[in-house]
């Protein structure tokens, strides 16, 4: 038990050191713009379908499940407000981040892990390229920059899914639905959600890269790196979400 606690704190220390190294390397030239763009494409574009599908289903299900209760209370006209606020504030960012942690963190963990095991990272270092800057900084930055965009995209698709239910079941036009949603939303909903999405992206990127980059030797290490990257990233997402909500409450009185 004591050993486990000790290992936990050692890991926290290692991740903190890894993150500090990221910030140091990220601000010092040379910058790997080409690789950053490639990673943005990999992280952003290749996650679109996944985020869209999940967002659409979440919007649909949330509306269908909530509808009977709101009808019971005679508050069905509040549906767009309720769904809009819950998706933009919480459900959209958290679900998108969780989906992305499954795809991105495990991808980073497996890719960097296999590069470590097959000595590709050593080969990069011997060739005079800083592998941390080329592999880690670009990936973490790509995840940090792309996640807010994916969250916004996911939110819109989720709202579209919700509006479809309202259109068919409640005879609410798309125009009325979206007007009501945007009337209900304020900057206090949008800004904290967008800012915390950046942190979600950073957590996903840094965890995936940390697990992959520091993986033990051997192919078994690659599997473990991918797996633990997802578990650790998902757990950290909730911790960051809690802190984000707590801080937002100070500024916006949610």
């Amino acid at each position, binding site marked *: 038990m004591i050993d486990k606690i000790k290992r936990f704190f050692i890991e926290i220390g290692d991740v903190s050191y890894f993150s500090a190294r990221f910030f140091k390397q990220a601000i010092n030239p040379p910058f790997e713009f080409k690789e950053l763009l490639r990673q943005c494409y990999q992280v952003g574009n290749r996650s679109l379908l996944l985020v869209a599908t999940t967002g659409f289903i979440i919007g649909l299900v949330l509306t269908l499940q909530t509808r009977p209760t709101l009808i019971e209370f005679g508050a069905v006209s509040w549906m767009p407000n309720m769904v809009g606020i819950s998706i933009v504030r919480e459900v959209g960012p958290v679900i998108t981040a969780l989906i992305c942690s499954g795809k991105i963190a495990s991808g980073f963990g497996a890719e960097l892990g*296999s*590069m470590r095991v*097959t*000595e*590709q990272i*050593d*080969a*990069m*270092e*011997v*060739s*005079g*390229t800083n592998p941390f800057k080329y592999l880690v900084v670009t990936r973490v930055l790509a995840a940090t920059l792309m996640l807010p965009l994916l969250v916004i995209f996911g939110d819109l698709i989720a709202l579209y899914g919700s509006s479809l239910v309202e259109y068919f079941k409640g005879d609410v036009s798309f125009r009325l639905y979206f007007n009501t949603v945007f009337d209900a939303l304020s900057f206090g909903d949008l800004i904290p959600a967008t800012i915390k999405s950046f942190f979600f992206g950073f957590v996903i990127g840094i965890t995936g890269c940390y697990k992959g980059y520091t993986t033990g030797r051997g192919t078994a290490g690659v599997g473990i790196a991918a797996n633990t990257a997802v578990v650790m990233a998902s757990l950290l997402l909730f911790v960051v979400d809690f802190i984000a909500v707590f801080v937002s409450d100070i500024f916006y009185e949610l």
Partner: protein
Amino acid sequence: MKEQENIGNTELDTTNEEVVIKIQDLRKSFGDNQVLRGFDMELRKGENLVVMGKSGSGKSVMIKCLVGLMSPDSGYVEVLGKDINTLDQVALDELRSDIGFLFQGSALYDSMTVRENLEFPMRRHRKKFEGIQDTLPLVKEALENVGLGHTMDLMPAELSGGMKRRVALARAIILKPKLILYDEPTSGLDPITSKEIIELMRSIQKKYGTSALIITHDVDCARVISERMILLVDGVNYAEGTYAELIQSEDPKVNAFFKK
């Protein structure tokens, strides 16, 4: 076998006494496991030196200490006249441009084409190619040296094990290094491909006049390519000499390496 003996008939100049690698009292441990316990070695200019040792004897650790991939616990490591342990990152990277490294598993970048793999080391060493706008002729030359001029646009996954090793060799020589380090160059290859790799190593040395340090446990490879050999046993330089000298040794630890 006969053919390999012919290959071993070297015409290279090994009389030059300029030292390109000097290791003194190199020590490295991993926890309680003391891998290197005071290893000494010298490699002279233009020479092919083979270091043989059992698996886990510290051969790869030693070679990684030479390029700064690992830091020794203690000891002096000098490569091309520079003390590795005192170099800052910029100086180390500059020195690395004069060292080619062939990794055991080839270590080609999976996500890049063969051409991109070869161009990759050139991006950080532009100084070496001042005045050269197009890198394509250099890539072509390196690939033609290893007989794979047609593979430029292929991905590593599309290559066989032997082809990967040859591309890795082309990548190791793309910066025209003065010294090439080979970590198990023939491991995992069939005897015919191994022979081809050895021939390539020799032809590259002849063409560019490089010095080579070869880490291996392949006796045939050592016999054909070595001008001098070192046996790494229990973390120290246990025996040193030419292949012919070592094979005649009556020491049981030395004999163990050459038993068929």
